[in-house]
């Protein structure tokens, strides 16, 4: 009866599916001015970066016994760098990297 353009669709009652491991409709990797860089040699797996990241962008790779960074969602707050106990983490300017390009049409 009504024509609703795809980009304006809202599910009935605004009830949306729950995400499973990440919310792909809200990629936040384009928020970063700086990114954390890890020196795996210095990392003693203190877990601080994992527990203190508000965006759950550090996870433990149990198999490799190392921490893994999620570039797709990291907003570059650098709490992890600040809380790192072994100086394994440092900050680096985002334009120094070719990777990590998101380039959305709109901010969200």
């Amino acid at each position, binding site marked *: 009866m009504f024509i609703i353009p795809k980009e304006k669709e809202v599910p009935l009652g605004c009830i949306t599916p729950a995400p499973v491991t990440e919310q792909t409709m809200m990629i*936040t*990797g*384009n*928020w*970063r*001015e700086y990114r954390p860089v890890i020196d795996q040699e210095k990392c003693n797996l203190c877990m601080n970066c994992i527990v203190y990241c508000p965006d759950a962008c550090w996870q433990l790779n149990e198999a490799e016994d190392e921490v893994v960074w999620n570039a797709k969602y990291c*907003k*570059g*707050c650098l709490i992890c760098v600040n809380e790192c106990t072994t100086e394994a983490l440092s900050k680096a*300017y*985002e*334009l120094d990297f070719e990777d*990590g*390009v*998101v*380039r*959305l*049409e*709109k*901010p969200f």
Partner: protein
Amino acid sequence: MASKVKQITVWARGVVQDKEGRDIANGLANAAKKEGKFTQAFDNYVDLPDRVNVPLRKYARISDEEIEERYEYENEKPEVVIVADATLVKGINVLRGMEKGGVLVVNTDRKPEDILKFIPNRDLLKAIVCVDAKGICGEATVDFSGSEGGVDAVGLGAGMAAPILGALVRGTNLVKLENLAAVVKNKEALYKGHEQAVVKTL
């Protein structure tokens, strides 16, 4: 949108550059008003409330005639795009909607080439202007008095917005430098930005 309205879009990062972004848009509009133009400057409401680091848009419009689209709240076809934090070019198609012959102004201490490599649709540009606004006047001013429709209490162009506005005059003829100087608080930074800007014509 009538073609006579020039649209200017400012991209900035939430909270840390919210005021600077708004100051750029307001500075442009206020200076253009001094030249007898019809103007408009406003926040993108959908990008608010702003969060630390979130990409957000501020808009200005300049026209020789009365702006009829006052309540169309997005700039669909910007002629000039200002990027207050250079890293935004990796995250956003900042030239979205631009027609061929536009100008990009970037706050960065890097060279135009370093920025352009992150802009796949750079053929739309006739010029890119780079200015190290942070180098000229330090960190951005964080202040909320002018947010959510409030009136700014710190002063327009007290910080990073001033050199960026100065640089803008080098790449566009939107407004005259002296008219910007009349509305911007940190005039020294404005002039420095104007002098130190690097323009690359494409």
